[in-house]
């Protein structure tokens, strides 16, 4: 194994750590929202600085490999995609923290009836299964798995769209401010799903040298 391969492997391990950290943040975030667990919500915030530190470590590694080892072809694509995935993951973790902050600062839980009606549990399960797919496709270098998330992202968009319409009917029954926090959380989950989709596209770029982003908009 040459030096470049060693550095690439080490970078891959760090990025996998980042994936796992973000995955764990989101699993906790789901519990915080659904069970109004303010302790877990606080824990998410306290772990956020580890995500930020890891982001900087990965950036630095990418920079060093580019400057010192001049990667080309699949190695170059890996470093470029890692650089972008790293930033997307940091954003996804930020969103988990932001959702957790709503819970930590709220005085009351989101009403069970509204959570059920808006299918928040299903949406979070869908989102977390997207993270699992992304991690599996990254570890196994399998673009078929990465491609699974595009459909799932569309389903997240649907949950988000429906939630906007459905929540209005609860405005007279429950605390409106609380409902707006919930709706904002749903919007944020949808946005985090877009980031996972971008990560899937980067994994495909790394492994197949195909640029698939923005393709949908053209057709």
């Amino acid at each position: 194994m040459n030096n470049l391969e060693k550095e690439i492997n080490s970078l891959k391990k760090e990025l996998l750590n980042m994936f796992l950290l973000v995955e764990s943040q989101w699993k906790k975030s789901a519990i915080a929202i659904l069970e109004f667990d303010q302790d877990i919500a606080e824990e998410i915030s306290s772990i956020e600085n580890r995500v930020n530190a890891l982001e900087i470590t990965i950036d630095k590694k990418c920079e060093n490999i580019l400057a010192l080892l001049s990667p080309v072809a699949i190695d170059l694509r890996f470093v470029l995609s890692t650089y972008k995935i790293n930033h997307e993951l940091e954003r996804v973790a930020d969103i988990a923290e932001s959702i957790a902050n709503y819970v930590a600062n709220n005085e009351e839980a989101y009403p069970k009836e509204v959570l059920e009606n808006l299918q928040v549990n299903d949406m979070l399960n869908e989102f977390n299964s997207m993270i699992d797919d992304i991690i599996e496709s990254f570890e196994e270098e399998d673009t078929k798995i990465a491609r699974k998330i595009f459909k799932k992202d569309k389903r997240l968009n649907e949950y988000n769209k429906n939630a906007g319409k459905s929540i209005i009917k609860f405005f007279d029954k429950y605390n409106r401010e609380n409902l707006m926090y919930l709706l904002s959380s749903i919007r944020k989950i949808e946005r985090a799903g877009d980031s996972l989709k971008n990560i899937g596209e980067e994994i495909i770029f790394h492994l197949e040298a195909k640029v698939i982003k923005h393709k949908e908009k053209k057709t």
Partner: protein
Amino acid sequence: MKTKIEAKNIDVFYGDFQALRNINMQFEENAVTALIGPSGCGKSTYLRLFNRMNDYIDSFNMNGEIVIDGKNIYEKNVLVDELRKGIGMVFQKPNPFPKSIFENVSYGLKIQGIKDKDFLNRRVRKALEQSALWDEVKNDLDKSALALSGGQQQRLCIARTLAVEPKILLMDEPTSALDPIATAKVEELIHQLKEKYTIIIVTHNMQQASRISDFTAFFYMGDLIEYDKTDTIFTKPKNERTQNYITGRFG
């Protein structure tokens, strides 16, 4: 873009050993094409086909055609001396003659029988300007070329080649004996020269190939494995052997 050179069904043998196998390639005019591959892959043999340098090797034998500007240069009626007026070559190590700078650059013109001093002066100056050496040597044209640094000597050899105004430049690892500063100067020069010349360069330096060439051909054990635009070769090569070579996983 226009095709300047075409290699058709090229096989090359040294006695029983086959150095190149069924090579087919088209070279664009006013472009730099890099030939890369591990030692012994046949790239230098291939480069030397374009000015018939291999003709001097007793065991050399070939099939196929090298077509330059529509004419097969291996046809019997081709005058090799005439052919070489249009094809300059720069070698791995600078090889200036033990003569003055002026005599080195004007050498090719003089053996063509040109004696007009004004003409020679103009051509020498132009060639030295083209090779980015004029400002460094304009007051020392009578000094020995051997007093120049390695990088200057190599640019002098390029000037000597350019003075006869060839159309094609063949370069066989032209910077392998130079330091990074001299290498950067020669690379910049190659970049400028492609406006007027068709350049084929053999290099072992992957980064150099990626920096200076428009097209890259990867050779391995006598076969042309992949030939494409340089950015394609270095970002998404189609062949796994190309990828393994340029990423340093073999060779």
